[in-house]
C-alpha cells in the first residue's frame, strides 16, 4: 500500500465531471438568486471552453477572488452565512468553481463527493417522484465520472452501463437499509430559521386579500379518505383557525386571558359519524384541518375551545392523522362568558352605516337577524369575485353600501361585523370547503384553491351555528366548488381548470401516484417501521435485534452481489466435454487416461489392457480426433456421445 501519487487529471474525465456538476446544480436554479445561477452557468461554460481549447486552468488567485466575491454576494443576498438556503447557495457556488481547479485526480474526487452531498440538498425543496428520478440520473453521471477517473478511456456507453450496473447492485442494500435502519425522528437539534420557509397554507390572521391570494395556488393542502361514505359536498367544511378579534382591517384569534383555565368544548353529535384519515401537507401551523366537528381525535392532538383540532407541534412534515367527525352537532350550548364577550367586541367608531343598519335589527330574535343579513346578500346586487376593488378605512361600510364585490373573506367579515353590531355573538372561521374526489385512489383532494372563510354565531340553546354568507351570494361555490362559482377570466390556478376529460384523468392518475409515493415511500417513519417489523415477526424490536437483522440481511445481499459479479467460467466446448465424459466413464471401469495421452495413443493402450473396450474406445478416439483435427460436423460428435452410452454397464454396488 503505497501512498497515493498525485495523478494528473485526464482530459477525457472533465466532461463527465462537468456533466455531474451540471446535473446536481441545475435543479437548484429554481430557488437561487438569478445572479448566482448566471455566475454558475458562466463558470461552467468557461470550463467547457478551456477544456475544448485545451487551455491551462486559471491561476489560483483568480479563483480565490471569484470565491470571495461569490461568498460575499451570498452573504449579502441572504443576510447571513448560516441557514439552509445560504448553505445550498454556497455549495452550488463551490460546485461550479471547483471544475476550474481540477488539476489532479484528488480534485476530481473531492468534486464528486461534493456532488453526492449536493444531491441531498435537493430534498429540502422537493421529494417528488420527478426529483427522485432526476437525482438517479445525476447519481449515475457522478458514478460514471468516478469510473472514468479510475478506469481510463472507455466508450460512454460502457461507462454508463457500468455505472448503472453498480447502482442496480446497490439497490438491495437501499431496500434493506431503508426498511430496517433504525429511524430517528428529527430534528436532532434546532434547525436554522429558514428551515421551514416556503410552506404555504392558511395564515394566523385574515386581512382583505389573504385568502384570495391563497386561492390562486393549485397546490394540494391535504387529502382525505373516508372509511365509509363521504359526506355531502355542502357539509365539507374543514375547520382551520377561528378568529374572534377584529381591528377594522385584520381578523385574529384573541389571546386568551392568562391564568384562566381553558374551557373544555362540549359537543353533542347526532346522526352519521364519518371516520377518515387525512394526509396533511406540511404548513408550519398547528391546526389539523378536521371536518366540522370532530368527535374523536388522533393521539398527540387536542381540541381547542373554538373546536379546531390542534397538533401538539407545528406540522413541519407531511403528517397522517385519523379522525371521526359528525356534521350534525351542537357545540357549547353553554359558553364561557369571556368568549361570548369577545364575540361581541368591535373596534370603536368605524363603519357607522353598518352599525346603523344592524341596530335596526336589534329587536329581532338572533336567528331572524342572521336570516335578514343573508337575505340582504342574496337579494341585493352582491357579486362574488376574486378581484374586488380595494377598500379603505371603513371597509365593511364601503363593501356593503359601495363596491358590493367581494370574496368569501369580505362576506364573512361583513356578516360577523353586522352580527356583532346587532348584538349576536359571532366569529370568523377560516379553513377549506369542498374538495374533489380522485376516482383513481378514492382520496378527496383539497387544494389551496378550496380555502374558504365563513361565520359562526352563538344562539342560546343551540350553541355555535355555522352560517356561510358566501352561500347566499354564490350557492354554486358550496355545491360545486370555486370553479363553478366564479365567472370566466378569474385568476384561478390552471390545475383545477382542466376542462378536457383526458387531461383531468391524467392529473388524477399523477396525483394518485404522488399520493402513494408520499404515503409508502416518503411517509415511512419510525411508527410505520415498527408496524412493519411486528408484521414480519419482530415484536417490540429493540435496537439490538434490529441491528442483528440488518447485519444478516446486508450480509445476504453482499453474498448475492458477490456471486453475481463472480468471474464466470468459460463454457467448455461440447466436443471437449463429450470426450472428457467418455474418458471419465472408462476411468470408472478401471482405465484412466493420463493427462498427456492423446486420443489415439490412449485407444491403443486400452486395446492392449482391456480388449473388450477396444472397439468402442477406438471409435470414440477416432471421432474425437476427427472433430479436433479433421473436418468438423455434427455426425462424429453424435457418434462420440453414443459411444459413451454403448459402454457396458459397470457393476453397481448400490443395487
Amino acid at each position, binding site marked *: *500500500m*503505497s501512498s*497515493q501519487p498525485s495523478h494528473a487529471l485526464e482530459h477525457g474525465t472533465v466532461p463527465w465531471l462537468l456533466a455531474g456538476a451540471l446535473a446536481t446544480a441545475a435543479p437548484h436554479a429554481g430557488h437561487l438568486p438569478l445572479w448566482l445561477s448566471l455566475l454558475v452557468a458562466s463558470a461552467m461554460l468557461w470550463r467547457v471552453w478551456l477544456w475544448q481549447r485545451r487551455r491551462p486552468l486559471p491561476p489560483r488567485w483568480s479563483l480565490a477572488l471569484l470565491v470571495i466575491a461569490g461568498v460575499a454576494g451570498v452573504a449579502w443576498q441572504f443576510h447571513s452565512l448560516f441557514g439552509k438556503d445560504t448553505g445550498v447557495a454556497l455549495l452550488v457556488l463551490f460546485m461550479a468553481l471547483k471544475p476550474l481547479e481540477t488539476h489532479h*485526480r484528488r480534485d476530481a*474526487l473531492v468534486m464528486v*463527493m461534493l456532488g*453526492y*452531498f449536493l444531491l*441531498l440538498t435537493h*430534498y*429540502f425543496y422537493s*421529494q417528488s417522484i420527478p*426529483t*427522485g428520478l432526476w*437525482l438517479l440520473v445525476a*447519481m449515475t453521471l457522478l*458514478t460514471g465520472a*468516478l*469510473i472514468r*477517473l*479510475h*478506469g*481510463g478511456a*472507455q466508450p460512454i456507453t460502457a461507462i454508463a452501463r*457500468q455505472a448503472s450496473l*453498480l*447502482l442496480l*447492485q*446497490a*439497490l*438491495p*442494500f*437501499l431496500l434493506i*437499509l*431503508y426498511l430496517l*435502519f433504525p*429511524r*430517528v425522528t*428529527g*430534528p*436532532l437539534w434546532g*434547525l436554522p430559521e429558514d*428551515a421551514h420557509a416556503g410552506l404555504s397554507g392558511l395564515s394566523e390572521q385574515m386581512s382583505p386579500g389573504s385568502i384570495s391570494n391563497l386561492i390562486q395556488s393549485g397546490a394540494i393542502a391535504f387529502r382525505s379518505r373516508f372509511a365509509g361514505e363521504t359526506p355531502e359536498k355542502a357539509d365539507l367544511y374543514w375547520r382551520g383557525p377561528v378568529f374572534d378579534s377584529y381591528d377594522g382591517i385584520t381578523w385574529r384569534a384573541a389571546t386568551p386571558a392568562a391564568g384562566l383555565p381553558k374551557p373544555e368544548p362540549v359537543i353533542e353529535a347526532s346522526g352519521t359519524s364519518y371516520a377518515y384519515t387525512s394526509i396533511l401537507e406540511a404548513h408550519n401551523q398547528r391546526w389539523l384541518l378536521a371536518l366540522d366537528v370532530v368527535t374523536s381525535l388522533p393521539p398527540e392532538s387536542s381540541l381547542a375551545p373554538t373546536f379546531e383540532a390542534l397538533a401538539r407541534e407545528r406540522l*413541519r*412534515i407531511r403528517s397522517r392523522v385519523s379522525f371521526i367527525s359528525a356534521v350534525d352537532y351542537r357545540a357549547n350550548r353553554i359558553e364561557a362568558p369571556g368568549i361570548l364577550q369577545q364575540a361581541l367586541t368591535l373596534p370603536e367608531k368605524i363603519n357607522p352605516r353598518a352599525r346603523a343598519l344592524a341596530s335596526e335589527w336589534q329587536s329581532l330574535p338572533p336567528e331572524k337577524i342572521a336570516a335578514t343579513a343573508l337575505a340582504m346578500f342574496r337579494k341585493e346586487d352582491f357579486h362574488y369575485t376574486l378581484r374586488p376593488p380595494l377598500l379603505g378605512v371603513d371597509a365593511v361600510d364601503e363593501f356593503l353600501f359601495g363596491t358590493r364585490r367581494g370574496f368569501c373573506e369580505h362576506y364573512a367579515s361583513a356578516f360577523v361585523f353586522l352580527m356583532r353590531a346587532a348584538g349576536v355573538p359571532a366569529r370568523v372561521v377560516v379553513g377549506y370547503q369542498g374538495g374533489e374526489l380522485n376516482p383513481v385512489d378514492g382520496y378527496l383532494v383539497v387544494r389551496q384553491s378550496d380555502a374558504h372563510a365563513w361565520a359562526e354565531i352563538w344562539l342560546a340553546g343551540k350553541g355555535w351555528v355555522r352560517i356561510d354568507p358566501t352561500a347566499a351570494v354564490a350557492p354554486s361555490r358550496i355545491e360545486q366548488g370555486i370553479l363553478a362559482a366564479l365567472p370566466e377570466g378569474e385568476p384561478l390556478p390552471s390545475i383545477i381548470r382542466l376542462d378536457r376529460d383526458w387531461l383531468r384523468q391524467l392529473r388524477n392518475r399523477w396525483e394518485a401516484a404522488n399520493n402513494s409515493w408520499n404515503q409508502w*415511500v*416518503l*411517509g*415511512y*417513519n419510525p411508527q410505520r417501521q415498527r408496524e412493519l417489523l411486528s408484521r414480519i415477526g419482530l415484536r417490540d424490536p429493540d435496537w439490538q435485534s434490529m441491528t442483528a437483522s440488518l447485519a444478516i440481511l*446486508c450480509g445476504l*445481499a*453482499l453474498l448475492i*452481489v*458477490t456471486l453475481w*459479479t*463472480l*468471474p*464466470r467460467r*468459460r463454457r467448455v466446448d461440447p466436443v471437449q466435454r463429450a470426450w472428457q465424459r467418455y474418458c471419465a466413464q472408462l476411468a470408472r471401469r478401471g482405465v484412466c487416461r493420463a493427462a498427456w495421452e492423446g486420443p489415439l495413443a490412449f485407444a491403443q493402450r486400452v486395446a492392449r489392457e482391456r480388449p473388450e473396450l477396444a472397439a468402442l474406445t477406438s471409435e470414440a478416439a477416432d471421432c474425437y480426433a476427427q472433430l479436433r483435427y479433421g473436418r468438423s460436423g455434427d455426425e462424429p460428435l453424435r457418434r462420440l456421445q453414443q459411444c459413451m452410452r454403448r459402454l457396458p454397464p459397470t457393476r453397481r454396488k448400490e443395487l
Partner: protein
Amino acid sequence: MIIRLAALQRWLFRLARDEQLPIVLGQRRIFIVPTRAGVLFAGVLAVMLIGAINYNLSLGHALIFLLAGLGVVAMVHTFHNLFGLRLTPGRAEAVFAGDLARFPLQLDNARRQSRRALEFSFGEQPGVTVDVPSEGRVIVAVPYSTARRGRLDPGRVTLATRYPLGLFHAWSYPHPLWSCMVYPRPLRTPLPGPSAGAQADHHHGDSGQEDFAGLRARQPSDPTRHIAWKAVARRSDEQLLLVKQFAGGASDELWLDWSLTPPECGQEDRLSILTGWVMTADEQQVRYGLTLPGLQIAPAQGSAHRTNCLQALALYGAAP
C-alpha cells in the same frame, strides 16, 4: 517484537516465492482496504445521514442508503478486478545498469468482464497500468530502473487496483522466480593497445575484410554479409553455407585487459570502461578476448561471445 512482526507479515502477505505457474490470484492473496477517498466518502455519508435525520428527509435516507450500497458494491468489484487473474512470468532481457529492466508478465482473464486499471510495480518504483479485455490475454512489461550491475532480483510485484470507484484499494503480491542480468553501465573510451590506433583508422575502411583468405563453413556467430553466396550457389549439392575468411581481422586479435584500464579509477568504473570496449569491439567486428583478474575469455567474435563477456563483467566479484 520486530521478528514477530516480520513473521506475521510473511504469513499474512505470503512473502514466499511463487514456484507454481501460472500464478492464480485467489482470495487468500488479495488484500483490500478503503482508500483516503473511501474514508472521505464514508464521512460524507455520515454527515448526510445526520442532515437527513435532522430535516426528516425520507428520500434523503434513500439516497444515503443507495450510496452506502454503492460503496459496498464498489468493494466487491474492486476485489473481483483482481480475483481469478492468472499471471505467467516471462524472461527479462539483460540491460545495462541505469536502464529500465522490463519483466514480462502474461495476464490471462478467463471471465467475461474486462479487468481495468491494473497497476503493476516493484516496490516504490514507478509502475505500469494495463487493462485486460474480457476473456483476453495481455502481456505487460513491469519496469524496474536498475542502478547496479549484477544479477537483479526484483523482488515481489505489487499488483494494485482501485477500479471502479477508487473507494477501495485492492492489492496482491505475486512473487515469480525472476532475475535479470544487469551489465555494467558502458563507458565509451577508445579501444586499448597498440592496435587501437589502427583499429580507429580502419573503422570506415573495413580493412579486415579486404584480404580474402579462403572459405569455411558458416557458424551461427558469423555476420550474414560474410556469406559467400556465389560459392554456395555453385555447390548446390551441399546444404552448408560458406563464409569468406579474411586475413586482416585475424591478425588483429585484441585483448581487453583489466590491467589496461586506468588504475586510478575505482573497480566499477574500470568495469564500465571494459564494458564500453566490449561494445565498441563488437560493433567494429574485431576479434577480442577479455581478461579480468582470475578470469580469461579467449578471443572470439559474435553475439554469444559478447554476452559471455558482458555477463562476466556483470558478475565480476560476485559469489559464484
